[in-house]
């Protein structure tokens, strides 16, 4: 570390860092992301157990599940999601057939590969909401996948994959994008109040709800606290449609539009960005992933 050569190299290295930090856009530093994933793999034997220990001791751990109850709840949630997705798909196909009046090649619900994997750690900046998961292309994970928390609560989408790890961006991340969702007025029917939710930064999602009226009474249908909210965003992978985003925590009037409401939605898992194990869903065929 003290050889003259290295000493002479130091100013050049500092200069290079200044150029990289201030002058080179991130798209030209793609190699850094690959290096970072390698670093994460090297760190995995330590960061993984530390994360698991810390999240199991921390106050914000998810409520402990009895294994049998958890399996039943997840099966129930999976079937409900499948039913709602099928209903949406049927509606879409009816519309397509009506529009085109011709027989198109119709897709069934895409099968998914389910994989349970442990979290290796978060990024250096906890606010980024990026979680590194111990599963990669070797396990069949790709960027069309989504990650779920216990109870099939949607956690986020897979945004990068390496051979052994993948990166998941949590949906509650402050810098995350807005997503369209559906407040389930009736649990059994894929028809509810549409809303656009944006991550607030405190673990919740917030946004305006579309105005809708009851055809019989013409009274406005208002969302109620406790109602389940499901993802219904065409920009997300297909397999994530109708997955649970959380429950309505509060409903407020929209200050800009008096007829509309603003809802705050909280995921059913206490702190999504601090769970120790996730369930990864990856479409078996590519058509199931692409939005």
């Amino acid at each position, binding site marked *: 570390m003290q050889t003259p050569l290295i000493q002479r190299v130091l100013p050049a290295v500092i200069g290079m860092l200044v150029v990289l930090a201030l002058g080179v856009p991130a798209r030209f*530093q793609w190699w850094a992301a690959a290096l970072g994933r390698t670093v994460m793999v090297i760190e995995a034997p330590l960061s993984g157990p530390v994360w698991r220990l810390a999240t199991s001791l921390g106050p914000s751990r998810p409520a402990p599940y009895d294994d049998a109850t958890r399996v039943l709840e997840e099966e129930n949630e999976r079937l409900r999601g499948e039913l709602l997705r099928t209903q949406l798909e049927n509606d879409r196909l009816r519309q397509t057939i009506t529009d085109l009046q011709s027989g198109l090649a119709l897709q069934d619900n895409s099968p998914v590969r389910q994989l349970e994997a442990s979290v290796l750690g978060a990024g250096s900046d906890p606010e980024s909401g990026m979680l590194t998961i111990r599963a990669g292309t070797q396990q069949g994970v790709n960027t069309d996948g989504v990650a779920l928390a216990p109870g099939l609560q949607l956690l986020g989408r897979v945004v990068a994959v390496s051979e052994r790890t993948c990166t998941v961006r949590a949906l509650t991340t402050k810098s995350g994008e807005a997503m369209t969702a559906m407040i389930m007025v009736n649990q059994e029917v894929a028809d509810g109040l549409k809303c656009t939710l944006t991550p607030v930064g*405190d673990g919740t999602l917030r946004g305006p709800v579309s105005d809708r009226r009851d055809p019989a009474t013409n009274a406005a249908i208002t969302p109620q606290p406790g109602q389940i909210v499901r993802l219904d965003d065409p920009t997300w992978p297909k397999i994530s449609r109708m997955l649970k985003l959380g429950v309505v925590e509060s409903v407020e009037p929209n200050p800009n539009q008096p007829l509309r409401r603003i809802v705050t939605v909280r995921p059913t898992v206490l702190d999504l960005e601090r769970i120790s194990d996730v369930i990864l869903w990856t479409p078996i065929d590519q058509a199931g992933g692409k939005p």
Partner: protein
Amino acid sequence: MRGVTFALLAWIFLGLELGLKSPLGFGPSGVAPSFMFVLLTYIAMAATPKQTAWAAIILGVLMDLTNPFTLHGKIQPAVVVGPYALSFLLGSQLVLTLRGVMIRRNPFTLGFLALVGSIVASITLVGVFSARAFLENRDWHATHELWVGMKCSLYTGIAAVPLALVLMPLGPFLGLPGPQARRFARPNSG
């Protein structure tokens, strides 16, 4: 300074940074201690300026590589090399400047130096990412990030005190001179 011991400590502290930082943080606020900066502060308290600069660059680059962030409208996370490395470098320079007037044996010294060094590092980090706003579209609010950085610095300073009890006995293994070794020795310019 012994490279192997430094590499081992860097591996351990980066593991703590990735595995413990978020669970120890205050909810989703992003306020969490930086274990890597505590290690750097400890090295800067005893190593030569050149060794400190190299340690800051290596630890900072490791932080950069493990800090993916989201650019507006992009799904793939972005990684940029340099911001943490430069901020660690500047933060460690302040520690180098102040260490001469500190009682190095006291664990609170590590806490204080980690606090002030981390403040400088946070300001530099926010400055670099704010300058990068001209390069790419990122959801970045400098005032908020600066405020979070100040709180992180305070947390880092507090976390450094118990860590000092672990780090201080490791000095000989790192090949760093102890607090007394350099008192009457010729100053090492590095």
